[in-house]
């Protein structure tokens, strides 16, 4: 990482997912006067535009709290910025790239995610940009390992929840991911991928599920009429899922002791909604909460089964479904701990959705 490279600025890494585009941008802070003079106007304008704003267009957002200061990357020192915008606004982004003559700076742009394939021709025709397409899982793992290794000051990159089964005492605690292998990496985007990672270059995709962040948002939109992830989460935080779900105690009056099922466990997600009266008595918030709980618990239970099958005890959850979604993180932490009787540990990373983009950036600087 310390070796200087001759890659021209700007340095970008991009991850084009089903719902969101994630962009990381390295802003050099050690530009010499000489360099400054040589720097073309287009480059300056891009840097200024990205670093002086926290919002771009109607939907682009820079996650300032995630910004990494004074990072040394490839012999250069600077800040790493984390930007996201919805995939359906990609045309606007390409238009901007065209307006800012992005293509005059670069011949290739490192990109991963399905969109790198799907929109490759759009990049070429609309912005005259050549994409260097990268495998998303390779990038994801590279990104996770890199970010975890470089974050040393400020809030810890990796954290877990202490006392996950006691809501009053449940607190977020830093965790050191030294000697991380083997680990189960669960990436919750629109859908979910579960990877077993044995070393930086040795991993396999164990399975995946289509019940992911896209399902949560999609169902919430249909059930409540909301239109954004933030709105859906806000509603969920106000609702009560037990009015929507049928619990074990709703059926057995208490615990189902014969099978060791506690009364509070959900027996049937949305099970109460089979009854007309109950359908009429629930609120949109209740429905949003139930959707969140259903999707989250399901990811938890598939993850737990994979961990058992692969014989792995540490699980790292990443992906943008977890962004500002403490509810789901605590649920996952609870589920891992409770159903494994304390055997499994759920870990989370602060840069939850950006690892693929970081991996793409690293590929630009250090082709593997």
């Amino acid at each position, binding site marked *: 990482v310390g070796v200087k490279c001759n890659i021209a600025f700007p340095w970008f890494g991009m991850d084009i997912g089903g719902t969101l585009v994630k962009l990381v941008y390295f802003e050099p802070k050690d530009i010499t006067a000489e360099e400054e003079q040589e720097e073309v106007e287009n480059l300056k304008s891009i840097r200024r535009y990205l670093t002086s704003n926290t919002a771009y267009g109607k939907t682009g957002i820079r996650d300032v709290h995630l910004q990494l200061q004074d990072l040394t990357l490839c012999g250069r020192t600077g800040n790493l910025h984390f930007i996201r915008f919805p995939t359906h606004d990609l045309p606007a982004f390409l238009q901007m790239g065209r307006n800012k003559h992005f293509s005059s700076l670069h011949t290739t742009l490192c990109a991963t995610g399905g969109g790198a394939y799907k929109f490759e021709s759009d990049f070429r025709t609309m912005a005259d940009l050549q994409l260097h397409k990268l495998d998303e899982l390779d990038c994801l793992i590279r990104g996770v390992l890199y970010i975890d290794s470089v974050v040393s000051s400020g809030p810890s990159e990796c954290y877990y929840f202490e006392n996950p089964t006691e809501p009053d005492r449940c607190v977020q605690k830093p965790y050191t991911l030294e000697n991380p292998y083997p680990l189960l990496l669960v990436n919750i985007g629109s859908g979910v991928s579960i990877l077993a990672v044995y070393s930086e270059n040795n991993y396999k995709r164990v399975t995946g599920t*289509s019940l992911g962040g896209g399902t949560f948002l*999609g169902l919430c939109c249909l059930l409540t009429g909301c239109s954004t992830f933030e709105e859906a989460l806000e509603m969920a935080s106000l609702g009560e899922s037990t009015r929507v779900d049928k619990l074990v105690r709703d059926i057995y009056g208490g615990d189902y002791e014969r099978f060791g099922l506690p009364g509070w466990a959900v027996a049937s997600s949305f*099970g109460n909604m*089979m009854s007309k009266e109950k359908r009429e008595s629930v609120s949109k918030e209740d429905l949003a909460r139930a959707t969140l709980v259903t999707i989250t618990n399901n990811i938890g239970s598939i993850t737990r089964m994979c961990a058992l099958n692969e014989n792995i005890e540490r699980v790292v959850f990443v992906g943008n479904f977890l962004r500002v979604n403490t509810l789901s993180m605590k649920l996952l932490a609870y589920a891992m701990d409770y159903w494994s009787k304390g055997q499994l540990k759920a870990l989370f990373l602060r840069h939850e959705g950006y690892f693929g983009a970081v991996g793409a950036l690293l590929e630009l600087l250090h082709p593997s």
Partner: protein
Amino acid sequence: MAECSGIDSNPSSHTMDKSITLPPDEIFRNLENAKRFAIDIGTWELKTFGIIAASDKLYEISVQEEVTARLHFIKFENAYIETCLDFIKDHLVNTETKVIKATGGGAHKFKELIERKLGLKVDKEDEMTCLIKGCNFVLKNIPHEAFVYAKHADSEFRFQTTNPDIFPYLLVNIGSGVSIVKVEAEDKFERIGGSSIGGGTFWGLGALLTKTKRFDELLQLASKGQHTNVDMLVKDIYGGSYGCLGLTGDLIASSFGKSATADKEFSKEDMAKSLLHMISNDIGQLACLYAKLHNLSRVYFGGFFIRGHPVTMHTITYSINFFTKGEVQALFLRHEGYLGAIGAFLKGAEEDNPNQYSWGENYAGSSGLMSVSPDMNPMQRARSGTFDMLEMDRLERQLVNLPLLQDPSSYIPDTVDLTEDALAREYWLYCFEEALDGVVKRAVASQPDMLEAALRAEKFRQKYRHKLQTLRHQPFAYGSLTVRSLLDTREHCLNEFNFPDPYSKIKQRENDVALKYYQKAVKSLEELSWEERQFALVRGVLAGNVFDWGAKAVSDVLESDPEFGFEEAKRQLEDNSGVDIILGVMPFVRELLSRGTEVVLASNSGPALNDVTNGELQILTERIAAMDPVIQAGLRDDRLMLVQSGSSSPCLDLSRLDKVLAMVVRERQTDLVIIEGMGRAIHTNYYAMLSCESLKMAVIKNSWLADRLGGKLFSVVFKYEVPAGKPSQDCETSTPS
């Protein structure tokens, strides 16, 4: 997760008249003799099915004084529970039972009603325990209970051969939630997991999304929808497939993923379809993960989400195929809806040790599997959804595999699967329909002293004809359709109307005649040279085989000319010397005994057509022994054993033989098995592979079948086989006799 509920599959039932009349002829026949009861009632909130189980001791056969125990199950909508209870009360005369076993989510709601109506104490049993008990029972006792569902295949159902070793298996019960249970032995099972995303999620979420209230309607919506309009597919993200992971473009990347980004209306059908895929895939995935963790390859699916619905069976099957890359097959059960009731009944009958017997599905009294084709008239589905019956006969002995089967798990008794072979099905259904008049005539003639015999025979005709019609439309109703199952169904229907043995008098007459010729036949055989004698013996067995009143061609010949009686027939074919058992088989046995071979002679336990039963054979052999010292010595020295096969069918299932026979075969180290006759050697067992030498011999008495096999009517099949690895020539001959 844990709830097991039933559903009402009839969309129009809420408008139905609840004061229906039950047809007493069909439902709970012999109720007055019922000994025990059990009931399984679905959940309280929904209209559901209840199933009552009862057992009784059935008809007394005049000759044999035999009493058969039978289990009756009737499935009805909970709306009819009062009617059913009243019916039982009115017909229940002398039961000693004081208790009714009850299970299911609705059991406690109806407890008071049942206790009041029947005056029996309701004793509640754990749902899951009953479910598993019932599952073990049907898997062990009903051939073709489990099937694989293949939507686009010629026959939607591919029935599994019965494997006597049913454990371990995984049962995935999809009620409101999902329970995943690992079953390791009769009384050893464990709920190893589950999921809250189940039938209740499909129903509840589906009702919210589509404003459609009923489960069946939701499934109908789903079957018309396009999930790709709502789901985000891999190709929606990648533009094509994600090649390096082998994820095809059509794979769902995110369920409902499109409804989050697109600002548009989605059709009810599309949403229902997407929901169905989401839930089925999720359940399938979890089932595979559990199966892998516990190293299990047999996974059965049940619960109201499945209950015969083609849409859910298809999506679950698809999911299992996808997640296991075809290594595990999703299995479904024909009597899935009955498991709880069967289990509750067995719980109550524990003192009778029901598991020490084998049981058989009675085709006459069981409704069979409903057609699941969406093209099927919905009214037909609805009606049969109201009442559905299952009857099981207790067989007096335990049935097991023939120890000499080369590979019991792949043994298929039947030669042709009529479920898959449409041409053959067409022919045999026609053939059995054509023969019906003759069978009715024979039945009436067999009971000349009974005035109502004609009336009963007419009822038999109607019943069997109705069965044939059902099978024409739903060949899969009782598992794979075979010549054997058609024959057995006819036997069951005859029994149903008290014609347990229409051939008994003919057999007696035939035997008396044949006995007169026995000594003469033996004498003429002894005069032949060794080689000539062997040919003559084989010809004798085959010729005897021709005299089978059940075979159409033969009965046509014999019955076309009333003057052409048995005596004449025999005389015309005199050079063939003898009638089946006495003049064909016995001389053959005698020859074997004379050269020092031990012989185990297996015959049917119960009557079927004109086949000799073990009881009759005992008497006949005694009579022959009285005139033949060779047979006498054989019996005395225990070198000739008469054993019952456990079967009451004109065909033979070598995986369901009397335990005693299996034991004798093992103890005597049998090294040659001879199977004789069209039913046992052609319709069944033609391809059976044994671990010892075998000889299958029969005369083809059916011109259609002869054509099919490439021979002529009355051709001979003489198939001698030696298992691989044993030296000898394999000769198979088919020559006109």
